[in-house]
């Protein structure tokens, strides 16, 4: 049979060429399009580096007391000064990156996975699934978030895991709601119908076809929550429900250092505060960039 329309000459044997390099160039584009995003990506890389290699690079053991005289202002020997036990603040600030990143990443990962699965199911199947999960989420949302976190940590004990769980639980509703909204508007779009026709089971339609498409808006939420998770941990530290000493963690350092502001030992709060701010700042700013990165529409 002859071909009948333009361009339909039978396939040449050459394999299709895939635009391999596009991911890098896309990243480069996303970063350069918006200077703030570019800055955020740079800072993010720095934070990751500090988390990975910080403990091997710092001049002092962050836990060792008395590596210098207590409460020394910043100097060449101790760049960020020393604390009331003579610990090196610089080392503590750098090493804390890992724990803070761990707390925020794992908390957000848990709430993202659980929340978006719950929300997706509710948005996709509607009906009772939706009603029950909706009420559940409403119940969590009805608590002022920080207070709920406080309650959970107070009830379960203040270990790193419990802080992570508490943070995850209070963030969960955001993902659930968002996923529900995003899924329910896509529940009957063309490609979903098409996927059903292709023989995909409902769950596969949901998680194979719809879910990847709700990632871009989720990325923004993820980045906001990462920052928020760190702040949350800091708040818990301030009321004494943070991580256990002596682990260096920015929140607890700021919380403890805050008491030294009035007495003039500013370095105890400024440096961890700056680190904390930088991280939260980075996470908040990186959101739009991340969204653009995972959004195929934004790729040429």
């Amino acid at each position, binding site marked *: 049979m002859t*071909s009948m329309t333009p361009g339909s000459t039978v396939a040449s044997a050459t394999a299709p060429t895939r635009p391999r390099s596009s991911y890098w160039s896309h990243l480069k584009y996303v970063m350069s399009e918006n200077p703030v995003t570019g800055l955020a990506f740079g800072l993010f890389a720095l934070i990751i580096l500090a988390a990975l290699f910080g403990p091997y690079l710092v001049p002092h053991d962050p836990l060792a007391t008395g590596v210098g005289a207590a409460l020394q202002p910043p100097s060449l020997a101790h760049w960020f000064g020393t604390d009331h036990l003579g610990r090196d603040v610089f080392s503590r600030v750098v090493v804390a990156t890992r724990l803070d990143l761990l707390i925020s990443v794992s908390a957000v990962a848990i709430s993202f996975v659980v929340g978006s699965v719950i929300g997706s199911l509710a948005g996709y199947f509607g009906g009772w699934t939706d009603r029950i999960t909706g009420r559940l989420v409403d119940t969590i949302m009805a608590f002022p978030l920080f207070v709920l976190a406080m309650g959970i940590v107070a009830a379960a004990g203040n270990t790193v895991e419990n802080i992570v769980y508490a943070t995850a639980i209070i963030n969960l509703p955001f993902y659930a709601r968002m996923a529900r909204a995003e899924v329910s508007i896509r529940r009957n779009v063309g490609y979903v119908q098409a996927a059903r*026709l292709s023989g995909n089971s409902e769950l596969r339609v949901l998680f194979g076809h719809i879910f990847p498409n709700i990632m871009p808006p989720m990325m923004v939420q993820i980045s906001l929550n990462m920052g928020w998770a760190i702040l949350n941990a800091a708040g818990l530290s301030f009321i004494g429900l943070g991580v256990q000493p002596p682990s260096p963690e920015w929140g607890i350092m700021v919380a403890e250092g805050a008491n030294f502001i009035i007495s003039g030992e500013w370095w105890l709060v400024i440096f961890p505060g700056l680190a904390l701010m930088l991280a939260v700042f980075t996470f908040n700013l990186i959101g739009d960039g991340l969204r653009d990165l995972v959004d195929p529409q934004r790729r040429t």
Partner: protein
Amino acid sequence: MTIPLLDVQHLSVDFATRNGTVRAIDDISLVVGKGETLGIVGESGSGKSVTSYAVMRILDRAGRIAGGRITYGGMALHKARERDMRDIRGREISMVFQNPRAALNPIRRIGQQVADVLVQHSQATRGNAREKAVEMLRAVKIRDPEQRYDAYPFELSGGMCQRVVIAIALACRPRLLIADEPTTGLDVTTQKAVMDLIVDLTREYDMSTILITHDLGLAAAYCDRLVVMEKGRIVEANGSAELFHGAREAYTRQLLQATPRIDSEVRDLLPAALRATAMPLPETHDVGEPLLTVKGLKKQFGKPGADNGHLAVQDLSFTIREGESLGLVGESGCGKSTTSAMVMRLLDTTGGAIEFLGEDIAAIPAAKFAAHPLRGKLQMVFQDPTDSLNPRWSAAQSIGDPLQRLASHMNRQQREARILELAALVGLPVNLLDRFPHQLSGGQKARVGIARAIALDPRLLILDEPTAALDVSVQAIVLNLLEDLKHRLGMSYLFISHDLNVVRLLCDRIMVMQNGAIVEEGNARQLLAAPATDYTRTLLAAIPHPPQAAAND
């Protein structure tokens, strides 16, 4: 024609994009005389809208006039200050957009929106704005304008909204109206009413009009002169009749040809070069045993037994035989898509039977049908090719999805081979297989959708307005592709459309549907030639008729 009202000379418009500057309009010149109606036609993306935005100076941030002059009544619009432009807009030149519902502020009363313009241009004071706005609403033939003044856009139908938009545009009696696809998205019958209204009013107010459309039939029916655009340039400009009778440029001819007419055949739509290489169509084809028998199909949305009892589909029965194609036409909202979704087992029925290949598939819940062996035999091509492709999946992945799910016997290599085969079958260049939907053109996306639908060798293919979102030339190609596939693969079609002209091209039989029920059914040619019901006659009458010219050489 005396002094032109609008004179555009050598206009160019640039857009700044992430890939550098893009020239959307390249050196175009056009004039509109007093009282004249100028049509701008061309396919999607040819620069029609950008031209009008440039005239109005409402280009996006990224766009800028790169060269040329726009003169309106002696005034240089291309370098006018924003403040002066504000006085021009609405008062001297106004615009009507497509998608009237979106063009109205959803949370402001429609009367106020009309009044806003009147007050802005000092055509009314706060005191009498309401009165004048009501007057304007009456002028655009809105019933009970006093009451409607306080309505919100969502309380009106699409046609009504478009009337309001027209009222806003004409409120200050501008001298030039630019109508940018004012009827796209409206029903065929509404479309005619709206166009007639525009023509009446512009004539009454002695206005000039620019009508932007991709529908040559529509343009020819309403315009004095036509300008044909392609890729940001003007390829041809002439009086409507002249253009239709003797288009000089190949592109224009191709466009004219691709526009379905009451008497054209599906091959006629193709450009000459392609028509020559196309496979000859058999004069007749055999119609076999009944493939699909629908009996007493019903669908009610909302709670079953609810007292409002509106049935979207009521008591529908029809049969499709092997190799037959059946057309289903009707106004928007009459239940066409609902019917197809039920037959396709995407939607549970409220009542009735759907017998496919001897099995009553209506009994199987839609949610369970994915695993049914008949799933692959019953496939569908969707209306909007963009919407029906997963934005995160490449063309090859989309085509391969049904194979992966349902053709479990195939291994990876076999699947890859089948994808290439399908791409060849629908005429999709292989190098496009790795692209994402947003990197494909409308026609290419339609091909991907078709390839996916035929991947499993279905027996029945439902086509729900498969070309509604496509340009005429692409539509021509897709229609031909569908016709070829039907004959080559021996499938049966259920073809859904509101465009009788299009349905006729592909179908042996036609059903006309109104409010969820069949009002008329019969052989395609006979039904169109001698419609039995008023409703069908109205549908036919609403189709704009371009001058009857033999564009086929």
